[in-house]
């Protein structure tokens, strides 16, 4: 529906709402790379741009802050570094050490931390209406500037199932590799089912365990996407309510509705801030739990 070849702008409220959270249309990327990798189009869509933006925010700032902190003589962290250190220490003590264990946590700590900060920055970038602002500037300047290329699609990259599935696959491979590293290839797969069961039970337990293992990345993907999408959809619906009422019942009614909708939107934004932090933490936590389950098998 939204991905139509003619790139016509839909006026259906549902389409408009979805366009605010979805990626830009695949046939209308920001920068058309004209490059295909085994038939896969690698053009830079808005969400690819956002991924790169996350990398450009996360990597230099964290590396700079950590290096400055470590090499400083006083060893006193600044405000941002203090925040990072607080998260790092909290995750180390409450997630890594308790789920993966003292012995193996250092091996997997960088992955968990990177997952957390990557998703955290992605979630918060989604809360800042960067592209909507560009759209407004475009509108002010007559609606036909180069900025209009940026206004298609939403800016929450972590609401995109492709991105989340990639991250979830990283988790999947992480816990598979963790298990294999500790127990060896065959033993790791044997760990799927507890030993000592009656033979017929294995025919039930093994498929269930395999299914459970495969569902893990899927649940990670959908949990994060759903959470990030839901808040934004609610925000857009409340905002569009004002326009709908104004169109239907006139300007004054729209103004009246705006009081209701703006205050509710502000409340939702606050909720979104909590969810953005929480979901980043949940993703990192579950990754640690899965790795812990693969490493510490207790039958």
């Amino acid at each position, binding site marked *: 529906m939204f991905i139509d070849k003619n790139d016509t702008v839909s006026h259906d409220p549902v389409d408009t709402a979805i366009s605010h959270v979805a*990626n830009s*249309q695949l046939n209308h990327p920001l920068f058309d790379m004209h490059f295909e*990798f085994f038939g896969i189009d690698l053009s830079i*869509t808005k969400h690819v741009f956002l991924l790169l933006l996350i990398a450009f925010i996360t990597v230099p700032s964290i*590396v700079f802050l950590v*290096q400055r902190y470590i090499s400083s003589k006083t060893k006193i962290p600044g405000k941002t570094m203090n925040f990072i250190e607080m998260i790092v220490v909290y995750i180390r003590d409450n997630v890594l050490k308790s789920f993966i264990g003292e012995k193996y946590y250092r091996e997997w*700590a960088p992955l968990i931390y990177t997952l957390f900060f990557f998703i955290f920055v992605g979630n918060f970038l989604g809360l800042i209406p960067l592209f909507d602002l560009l759209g407004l500037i475009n509108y002010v300047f007559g609606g036909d500037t180069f900025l209009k290329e940026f206004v298609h699609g939403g800016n929450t990259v972590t609401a995109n199932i492709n991105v989340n599935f990639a991250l979830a696959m990283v988790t999947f491979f992480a816990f598979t590799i963790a298990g294999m590293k500790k127990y060896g290839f065959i033993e790791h797969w044997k760990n799927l089912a507890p030993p000592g069961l009656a033979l017929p039970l294995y025919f039930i337990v093994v498929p269930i365990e395999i299914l459970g293992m495969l569902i893990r990345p899927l649940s990670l993907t959908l949990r994060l996407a759903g959470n990030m999408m839901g808040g934004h959809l609610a925000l857009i619906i409340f905002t569009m309510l004002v326009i709908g009422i104004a169109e239907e019942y006139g300007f004054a009614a729209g103004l009246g509705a705006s009081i209701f909708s703006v205050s509710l939107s502000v409340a939702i934004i606050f909720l979104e801030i909590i969810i953005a932090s929480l979901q980043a933490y949940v993703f990192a936590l579950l990754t640690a739990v899965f790795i812990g389950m693969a490493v510490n098998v207790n039958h």
Partner: protein
Amino acid sequence: MDNALFQVDPGLFIWALVVFSIVLLILKRYAWKPLLDFLDEREKDISNSLAMAESAKADLEKIKDESEKILDKAKKQGKTIVGDSKQKAEQSANNILNKAQEKSNEFLVEAKSKIDLEKKRAIKEIKEEVVELSLDLASQVLQRNVKDDDNNKFIQSSLKAVKTDEAKS
């Protein structure tokens, strides 16, 4: 699924994997490993200094106990020393007093004997003086009447009396 929210985009999937892997590698090398090492070291330092403080506290307690013991011992010793020296002082004072007493007694005895001797000598001298005086007197009397036999006899008897007295004393 024909929905923009669930549109499958393998390109984005690959982009996400690549970007995340690069971020992971860089952060692992330059941020997380050094930070974890640094935090470990700092915690080790803190626990070390805590242990050091604890041991220093224990040492201090020990030293305090020891110093108290030493102080107690010193007090006891001081007391015994004072007691001893008091006793010694009393003893020596007594000794000195006794000696002084003895000496003074000796002096007294000596003085008495000296006084006796002096007394005897004085008496002797007085007696001699008396003899001389009486001789002088006698000579003066004699110059007037030498020829008087009675006077002569008297002088002779007086001289005898003096000599016997001298012999007695």
